[in-house]
């Protein structure tokens, strides 16, 4: 789990930087939803990039929350892990829903 956490953090470091620079680049001179969708729809490369981004978040966030639950809330054991598994599923679902909506 520690290895997954570190590996996903490395992926996220790249993804977040690319994401932020893309936003800054794209919003120069204003932006509308129609413009965004026009550029993003059917773009396989960005679809793949954001799918990896969502996957990294889905792995990274619940593992981090696992420690926070234990240390701050004293929540251990199977109930915590099951709840976080559900949360990971939600993150993956919500993330991919957005990716499919924008890029597919």
């Amino acid at each position: 789990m520690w290895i997954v956490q570190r590996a996903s953090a490395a992926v996220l470091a790249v993804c977040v930087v690319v994401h932020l620079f893309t936003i800054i680049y794209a919003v120069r001179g204003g932006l509308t939803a129609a413009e965004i969708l026009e550029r993003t729809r059917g773009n396989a490369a960005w679809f793949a990039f954001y799918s990896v981004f969502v996957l990294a978040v889905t792995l990274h966030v619940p593992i981090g929350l696992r420690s926070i639950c234990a240390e701050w809330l004293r929540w251990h054991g199977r109930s915590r892990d099951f709840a976080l598994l559900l949360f990971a599923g939600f993150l993956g679902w919500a993330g991919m829903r957005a990716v499919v909506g924008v890029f597919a």
Partner: protein
Amino acid sequence: MKVSVWRGGAQGEFQSFDVPRHPSQTVLDVVTYIQRALDPTLAYRFACRVGMCGSCAMMVNGVPRWTCRTHVDKVARDEKLEISPLRNLPVIRDLVVDMREFFDKWARAKGEFRGRGTRQDDFERVPPESPSRKLVDAGIECIGCGVCYAACDVVKWNPDYLGPAALNRAWTLVTDVRDRARLERLRAVSGDAGCHACHSHVSCTERCPKHLSPTAGIAGLKRAVAKAVLQGDL
């Protein structure tokens, strides 16, 4: 000087004493003065008085320190001192804590040396300049005073966590070329109670009176465990 000293067990309160100031006075001198001149019922631990045994560690103004090697000049704030038992350990009475849990964790981290030789074999030769010996040297001088353990927030949040001293000990054995219990030890120090729980706050390294870096040792253990997992050994 006003000195507040913890009295009682886990439930207790601070008691205030007036202690005369002297040049080069240590915090241990202050505690000893209180016991000898003001209140003989005060319980505290000390032995060597020169920073060799580590038994006089206490919280001084909220920071874990060897009281024998801490000058009042350096830590008193507005001529006030607050002295309490080491954090993260059960209090027996006044300034004395129960160290059993601290040392039990050394055993749980497989902190004992396991070589391959027998008493019939010659000594193993380990060149002092070899990289692994240098890594061992960097962490070997721990005297088990418990200062790092009291400084560690992860121990506070996760009472099962083995703590900096036990993990530092495990690291000095993992890096020892003579060691023959590497995988067993790596298994013992990995997981939620082991090296992976460390958040690298570096409080242990900041407070260690021997200037060791348990943080570096724990990072080494994380790398060693990851390597063993990726190689399929764990």
